[in-house]
């Protein structure tokens, strides 16, 4: 049984100009201990489909799916209270802008302990100890002192570490990382990715990594889903994706990498005439 299974997920938004279909019939699954990367341009629906899993979409969104299960349990039609028990506990998510996703009014210690207070029966002292442990495990130096720090007193990379600590507080089975390193420098990006891979290997959780950076995919993923305009174009394990991409869109995306430039010009995705009938291999 897969950890997370999604079949034919569709998300539509009500807008002033009528319905907008952001995600169009996506199916995917994640196993325990697996790193799945979802790649696509902005607007390809990669974040929206994961927000649908977390139930974080605004009321204008209509989510439909043939099946959406987490550990065999339906998570499409949960009551808000049941959903809150799962979100942050069994499934956790970290976002692109670490500084913006922390609350500037509270210390990071408070924000880590908040999750523990919500989901566990630990008393105050135990929560404190656990918070120190967590900060230590994500590589924040002097964790006891840092618990009292506010987000603005830390750098972007440190804030992302705190976000990861919050996400890992309750030992989730699935971690969804939405562009966790896009706002960070390459050297910091490397540290954060190494940390995520390290923690993933240690805890054996499933990890969904949303990104548009092919380099990040190459360095981290086991399996890759390529998304374009809300549809799934391709699904493959990482090696065969880079070796012999099946869909024309993936080929286009790979050749737009600056290091693959031939001569003076970079090929762009629009240079490739690919049919946009989506790849349907896994939907049979």
């Amino acid at each position, binding site marked *: 049984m897969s950890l997370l299974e999604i079949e034919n997920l569709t998300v539509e938004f009500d807008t002033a100009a009528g319905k907008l279909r952001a995600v169009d019939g996506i199916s995917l699954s994640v196993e325990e201990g697996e790193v799945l990367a979802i790649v696509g*341009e*902005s*607007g390809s629906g990669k974040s929206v489909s994961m927000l649908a899993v977390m139930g974080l979409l605004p009321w204008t969104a209509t989510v439909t799916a043939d099946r959406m299960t987490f550990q065999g349990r339906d998570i499409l039609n949960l009551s808000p209270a049941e959903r809150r028990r799962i979100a942050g506990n069994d499934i956790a998510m970290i976002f692109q802008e670490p500084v913006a996703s922390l609350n500037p009014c509270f210390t990071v210690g408070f924000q880590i302990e908040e999750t523990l207070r919500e989901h566990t029966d630990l008393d105050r002292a135990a929560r404190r100890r656990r918070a120190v442990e967590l900060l230590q495990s994500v590589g924040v130096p002097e964790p006891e002192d840092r618990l009292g720090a506010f987000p603005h007193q830390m750098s*972007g990379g440190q804030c992302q570490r705190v976000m990861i600590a919050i996400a890992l507080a309750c030992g989730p089975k699935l971690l969804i990382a939405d562009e966790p390193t896009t706002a960070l*420098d*390459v*050297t*910091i*990006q*490397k540290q954060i*990715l190494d940390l995520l891979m390290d923690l993933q*290997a240690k805890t054996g959780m499933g990890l969904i990594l949303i990104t*548009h*950076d*092919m*380099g*990040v*995919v*190459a*360095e981290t993923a086991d399996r890759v889903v390529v998304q374009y305009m809300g549809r799934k174009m391709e699904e493959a394990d*990482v*090696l065969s994706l*880079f*070796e012999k991409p099946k869909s024309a869109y993936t080929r*286009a*995306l*790979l050749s*737009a*990498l*600056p*290091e693959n*430039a031939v001569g*003076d*010009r*970079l*090929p*762009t*995705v*629009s240079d490739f005439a690919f049919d946009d009938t989506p790849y349907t291999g896994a939907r049979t």
Partner: protein
Amino acid sequence: MSEIVLETREIVRDYHIGGGLFRQGRTIHAVKGVSLKLEKGKTLAIVGESGCGKSTLARMITMIDAPTSGELLIDGEKVDIAKKGLTSELRRKVQIVFQNPYGSLNPRQKIGDVLMEPLIINSNIPVSERRERAMQMLKKVGLAPEHFNRYPHMFSGGQRQRIAIARALMLNPRLLVLDEPVSALDLSVQAQVLNLLADLQDEFGLTFVFISHDLSVVRYIADEVMVMYFGEAVEYGTRDEVFSDPKHDYTKTLFAATPRADVESIRARLAKKAA
């Protein structure tokens, strides 16, 4: 012998953090004596992590901030905005494109007005010609005439960056400073904007100062590379020199941290994981 468009000699910028009743003031040395020379039509890439002073250097080259000490020469002439102020002649020569195209456009200003504003401020070209020039520039950067009367929110990130580039080019600058112009953009859009920049450089004979932390982009676009670390230029040379034989430890770290997207490194990683 080609002409030197930009030269800095031991340029320094300090920021003073004011002390209060109970606190002493501090001085932050953001840029500590950087010297560089750039020929016409070339691209210099400045690489470094956030906080290393690369944007401060860009602001000094663009004459937004005055250097604390050292000399800045544009077209061989010494520029000192702290004493003499900035003339529209100088402003015309150097323009800048910022990282975030969302933040650098006024949401209540139509694209046509965005493009014409530099002309209004820095020249006395009549209205009809301003309009004409703005239209031409729109086409040059790959947008259509019907975009003239639209507002920034109606455009995608890539299009907005094109608008910012068009605005910078309205005054026919000699030198264009690009402060992380593609780091907020997607891979495919990034390729389009990089191509556009290369085309414009050929067409107008532009000189670029390109600030980035993405080494794959730098390798693609730069002629010369400067690596900055804590306000100092720790490595400076042609692209091939720096990429083939990095000398400073920080440069090596930087290269090691850049993700590799080739099949061999994926194989190596998977093999390591299986073991």
